[in-house]
């Protein structure tokens, strides 16, 4: 479990992270979203005891990050860009990492085999790391972070540089791990966080903007019901009827194309009303033909854009 309370970090006079409070439960994958420079990596550096917080506290499995050696033993960390020892081969790197984390020598080789299989590194164990592609280096970093079987995994942009197939594999791996461990992963790829995380938080300029499940975040920043309608017939009459029925309803756009088809966007702040049904009835009543109607859902991109002030 990861728990932070008013965690802050100053670089000189500037706040990189400001009063960040959140918790990640055991068996949960939490996504840390934010534009570049939002404070994602600094947050992770504090949780892994690379940097001490300027103020506030954080606990990993109940242990304060001040007791850094105990915390580090429990955490598996993949830093941004997955740095590894380029002059060593994959086996050499993993074996060094294992030894440093106190993996018993007797089981070290089995562990390396297990983790390299999980990360798709079989057959690459004796290749030098500087000869590997970026995707494979990312896998090496991921395998290294899990060698000592940590309770808590902190992954800074774990899938950057991977091709789409590798991305799917790594996401599945993280999902599997998330069932038994506490995982905090940062990313600015929204689809990734959407696919992998149970909950997510959005930070911007070091401050927490939103935290919750995907649906909670969408509900939080939803701007009401948005209906796209495509019809043939007297659109003005339909609009008048709808306005009569729902005063708060607004028309975002109304475009009449050459073939007599009108495209309309209706907006209403209340999502629970049956606007679609009313539109259908109104179109039929004016003798028109309804060609298409769909509700526009708020996407995670919209949420992100709104929460981070469109800085990304």
């Amino acid at each position, binding site marked *: 479990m990861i728990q932070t309370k008013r965690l802050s970090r100053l670089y000189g006079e500037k706040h990189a992270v400001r009063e960040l409070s959140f918790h990640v439960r055991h068996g949960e994958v939490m996504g840390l979203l934010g534009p570049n420079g939002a404070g994602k990596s600094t947050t992770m*550096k504090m949780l*892994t005891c690379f*940097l001490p917080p300027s103020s506030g506290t954080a606990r990993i499995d109940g242990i304060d990050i001040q007791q850094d*050696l105990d915390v580090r033993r429990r955490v598996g960390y993949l830093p941004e860009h997955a740095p590894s020892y380029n*002059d060593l081969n994959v086996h*050499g790197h993993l074996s060094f990492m294992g030894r440093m984390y106190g993996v018993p020598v007797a089981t070290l080789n089995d562990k390396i085999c297990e983790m390299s299989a999980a990360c798709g590194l079989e057959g690459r164990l004796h290749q030098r790391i500087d000869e590997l592609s970026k995707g494979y280096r990312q896998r090496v970093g991921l395998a290294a972070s899990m060698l000592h079987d940590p309770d808590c995994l902190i992954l800074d942009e774990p899938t950057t540089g991977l091709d789409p197939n590798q991305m799917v594999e790594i996401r599945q791996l993280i999902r599997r791990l998330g069932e038994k461990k506490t995982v905090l992963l940062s990313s600015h790829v929204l689809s990734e966080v959407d696919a992998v995380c149970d909950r997510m938080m959005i930070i911007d300029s070091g401050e927490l903007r939103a935290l919750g499940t995907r649906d909670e975040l969408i509900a939080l920043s939803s701007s009401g019901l948005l209906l796209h309608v495509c019809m043939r017939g007297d659109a003005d009459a339909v609009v008048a009827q709808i306005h009569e029925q729902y005063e708060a309803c607004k028309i975002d756009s109304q475009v009449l194309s050459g073939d007599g088809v009108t495209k309309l966007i209706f907006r209403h702040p209340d999502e629970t009303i049956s606007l679609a049904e009313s539109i259908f009835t109104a179109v039929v009543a004016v003798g028109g033909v309804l060609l298409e109607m769909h509700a526009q859902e708020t996407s995670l991109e919209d949420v992100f854009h709104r929460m981070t002030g469109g800085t990304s």
Partner: protein
Amino acid sequence: MNMAYSQVISLCRKEWRIVMDTPLGYVMAVAFLIVCGFFFESNLFLMGQADMRAWFSILSLLLMFFIPAMAMRMLADEKRSGTFELLATMPITTMSIVWGKYLALWLQIMVLLALTLLYPLTLSWLGDLDMGQVLASYAAAVLLASSYAAVCLYASAITRYEVVAYVLGFVMLLLVFLLSKAMPTFSPGVQDWMVLLSPLSHYQSMLRGLIRLSDVMFFITMSGVFLTLTWFELERRRWR
């Protein structure tokens, strides 16, 4: 085995593996032996005596060029490639990192010095060599190299660039050398202090075949000071 101790050994082993797996170590060893051999031979044939004092004097100069080269990537490379973040988030103290790196560097230098044992062995076969003096001189060389290694490790800790680390290490050692050469130009009071604080004057005094506790303590203290500075430099990121 104690965890911290085994981590220091693991870190040291990793450094060795990099030295053995890359041309770095071999190039350094060959270059060192060629240069050392050249000065040994020229002295031997010039003087025609079974004596190594002149060679040991030159050795202190050679260490000034070679140790910065062996130490330059130790920490600078970790910082530049980002692996320092891996190292610093492992369950290991910063002091253990410094010890692991220092031990690896020290052992590399010791291997180079051990290779030069061929020269006294040759000399003792050719003529009557004062083995006591040679052993004391080797002890002096080991101590001098140890303190130089600590200085250069510190140079490697303060920058991300290997070349800068080399230049910094070399300049620091050069300063020591130049100051001890310029010693006669200072006033007698200052000279006394300089003799006390110059590693080269302690080294020269040991080359006479006399191992004094004060000389040994000087080199150990100097190494300790620079290892502490290295530790401070690595910890500094936390206080910024």
